[in-house]
């Protein structure tokens, strides 16, 4: 009896039968609803009712303006096809990398895994600029190509192709992470069954392995896709020169004119696209039972021996890594060290003055400190709130919690600039509560809105993996509901919370598009300063700041590794003395 239906709690009892904890659940739901209403629904509402206003009257004119202009269709169409292709490429890179790392005997797996997620740590705007430096008309690669072949290279970074490529190499870690996880958990006897049925290794990958990890591929693809459609920096830097517009660059333009109603109407379009895709992806995922193979039990993965191909695969992998991951980082570091952008690589052109200059600016220093406060604060709040929502949704099966989860995920599909605008609208002259605008708090609120989805995603999936009976066992042992949460659920949820925390921290630490609209003096962030420096032509200083964030993120990574080890050591120690 391996597959049995886990009995579900139903909450259909008559109200008078509600136990005290049921009431407690309601209270929790109420508080969370309040939190989501204030941090997410209220700002969203502030933006969206304006899209239905023309000169103080209700009207759909803004939407007709969006839909009547062919250039907007063009932008929508561009957004779609570019994102689809970029996602396709990201899926290819991410899945292949995950497969090689998880399912073959390449060496240095730990190092490879770290390097493969490094693109997460670089702001997209910088990968775009980095790629211009590498593959632009006078970029490093271009020059090498010219020297080697004496002809201009066959690529053009300022093109839809360039956008697709850079989006793909920025977003593939989403796919890599989810697919690698699924491959690690997949029951390898499914593959072995095919091998003993006479099927060759490549055919197995095509017919068995890939279809089975399809939910993970789709999940990663969805994240990559949404990140592509709401990305601004990359199409802005690479697309304008080719007169190639996507929705986000159009929205930015509308904000510039400024035509806020138009911008929000377009944002609604973007959100619709995201929602349609979400639903479509869910459909594609198919019924759950079809993929029940991914169970919680540990299995020994089926490792493909590469044999003679091993050094070649490794070399190819490192080459790819160097080209798509390390080179942009290298370009960034180079920029921060060169006297000016594009200078020759001669010794006297190297300088530390950008670092010195930027560190001499009190605003930049404050920015570093503020980011060091804001990122962990946002990560902590989001993780706690989303753990509570996920708990109500997954474990307590409280009606309404699922809706809350859904609502809190919506801002994920919004471009950062729209979130920024919504923050000003909501908090500069608020209908209630304190004026957050002008303080650090508004940045916190902006980050919470933007990254809530990350927290929800990681806590939800972890909770789903914790079998109900673990909590019920505590409950029937005499622990109250609250005590059960404290002693059983939380400790088991901790790894998921930590993973979510790190993801949010990294993203919030150099967040750019939201911050740049809502920061004020005293409330600068690193992202803001990177952008301001960049925008006013101090590319070197901007790069220097961006480089300064890399060790922070690296340290954070090491810190979490250390935490995990500490946990293991604590267990070992505890295992040594029974009554600890």
């Amino acid at each position, binding site marked *: 009896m391996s597959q049995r239906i886990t009995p579900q709690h139903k909450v259909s009892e008559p109200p008078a039968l509600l136990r005290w904890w049921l009431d407690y659940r309601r209270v929790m739901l109420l508080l969370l609803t309040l939190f989501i209403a204030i941090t997410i629904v209220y700002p969203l509402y502030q933006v969206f009712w304006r899209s239905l206003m023309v000169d103080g009257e209700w009207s759909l004119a803004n939407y007709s303006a969006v839909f009547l202009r062919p250039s907007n269709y063009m932008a929508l169409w561009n957004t779609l096809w570019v994102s689809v292709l970029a996602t396709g490429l990201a899926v290819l890179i991410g899945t292949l990398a995950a497969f090689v790392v998880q399912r073959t005997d390449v060496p240095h797996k730990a190092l490879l895994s770290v390097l493969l997620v490094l693109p997460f740590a670089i702001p997209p705007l910088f990968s775009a600029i980095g790629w211009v430096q590498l593959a632009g008309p006078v970029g490093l690669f271009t020059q090498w190509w010219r020297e080697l072949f004496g002809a201009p290279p066959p690529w053009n970074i300022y093109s839809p192709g360039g956008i697709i490529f850079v989006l793909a190499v920025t977003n593939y870690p989403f796919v890599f992470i989810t697919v690698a996880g699924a491959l690690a958990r997949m029951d390898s006897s499914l593959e072995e069954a095919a091998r003993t049925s006479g099927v060759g290794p490549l055919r197995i990958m095509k017919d068995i392995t890939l279809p089975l990890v399809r939910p993970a591929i789709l999940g990663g693809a969805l994240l990559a896709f949404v990140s592509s459609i709401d990305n601004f920096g990359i199409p802005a830097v690479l697309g304008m020169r080719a007169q190639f517009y996507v929705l986000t660059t159009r929205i930015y333009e509308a904000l510039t004119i400024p035509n806020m109603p138009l911008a929000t109407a377009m944002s609604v379009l973007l959100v619709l696209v995201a929602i349609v895709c979400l639903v479509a992806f869910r459909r594609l995922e198919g019924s759950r039972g079809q993929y029940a193979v991914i169970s919680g039990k540990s299995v020994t993965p089926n490792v493909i021996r590469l044999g003679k191909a091993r050094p070649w695969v490794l070399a190819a992998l490192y080459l790819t890594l160097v080209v798509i991951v390390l080179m942009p980082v290298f370009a960034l570091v180079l920029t921060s060290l060169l006297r000016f952008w594009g200078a020759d690589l001669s010794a006297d052109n190297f300088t530390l003055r950008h670092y010195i200059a930027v560190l001499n600016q009190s605003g930049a220093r404050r920015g570093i400190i503020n980011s060091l406060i804001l990122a962990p604060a946002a990560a902590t709040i989001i993780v706690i709130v989303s753990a509570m929502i996920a708990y109500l949704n997954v474990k307590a099966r409280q009606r309404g919690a699922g809706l809350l989860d859904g609502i809190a995920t919506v801002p994920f599909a919004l471009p950062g600039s729209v979130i920024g605008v919504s923050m000003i609208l909501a908090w500069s002259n608020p209908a209630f509560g304190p004026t957050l605008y002008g303080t650090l708090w508004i940045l916190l609120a902006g980050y919470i809105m933007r990254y809530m989805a990350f927290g929800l995603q990681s806590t939800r999936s972890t909770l789903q993996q914790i079998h109900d009976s673990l909590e019920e066992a505590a409950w029937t042992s005499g622990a109250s509901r609250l005590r059960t949460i404290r002693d059983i659920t939380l400790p088991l949820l901790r790894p998921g919370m930590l993973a979510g925390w790190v993801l949010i921290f990294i993203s919030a630490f150099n967040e750019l598009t939201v911050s740049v609209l809502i920061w004020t003096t005293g409330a600068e962030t690193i992202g803001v300063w990177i952008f*301001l420096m960049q925008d006013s032509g101090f590319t070197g200083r901007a790069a220097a700041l961006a480089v300064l964030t890399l060790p922070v993120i690296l340290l954070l990574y090491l810190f979490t590794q250390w935490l995990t080890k500490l946990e293991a050591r604590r267990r070992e120690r505890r295992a040594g003395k029974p009554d600890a």
Partner: protein
Amino acid sequence: EPSGTVTFYSSMQLDVVEPIIEAFEERHPEIEIDLLYSGSVELEQRIFSEIEAGRLRADVIWAANPALFLNLKEQGWLAAHDSEHKHAIPEDLRDEDDMFFAGRVHHMGIGYNTNMVSEDEVPRTWEAFLEWGPQAASASPLHSGTNFNMLGAFTQNDELGFEWYERAREAGMQVVRGTGDVTRGVVSGEFAVIKGIDYIMAGQAAEGAPVAFSFPEDGVLALPSPLAVTAESENDAAARVFLDFILSEEGQQVLVDKFFMPVRTDVEPPTGLPSGDAINALEIDYDWMAENGDELRERFSELY
């Protein structure tokens, strides 16, 4: 005696604004300037968002796009200020109702890469500029306020006209997003000539980049960066003191040290730059711009 904090929104270069603020705070220790520096586009987005929300935080605004100020003036967000310095400033550099004053002037002309363009190749006219074909570049009027004004000035000019942009398109001139992008392009040698801004080119050259700036004979865009006190300022008195300081000789001298053309006739321009009279500035009618802006944008976006 005015005191307290003045919230100052500015899209002027930090290394310009900061020395002015320092000098001001030294002179008026009882007033503190709270600077919010931002790129011009983001600053406008922010200002309009605040207005949407019903409250403008700024006491003093100093930004690059005159159209913004016309707009603010029309909506009643600016306060008139009968500045003691107003007579030192030419009339075309201030609002007729004293609602705003140019705090500085910058010019858009031709920037070029000295490694790629030899002394005798330097374009002296906008026609010569076009000869560089795809090696010439401009930021997009849709994203750069200065270039938007340039587009307006060209369109209003009989000789150049909107047709210049059409010819540019044929010649293969590149249009990139913002000022930062063109600057990086010319510095790195991706572009030989660009529509550049005087102080940026001078600043880059001072950093050691191989760039220089030239004033084309058939017209330079001289763009005043207006400065105004807001109508709902919570510290109106101090705001006015600060505005006056920027317009004062002392304030303008700080600008000149940073390669800016002063707005006062009684302050010498930076060395090496022609004096204000020697520059053939294009006529620009901001009211016309405000009226026809959207159409202009539309037209341009159809072209590029």
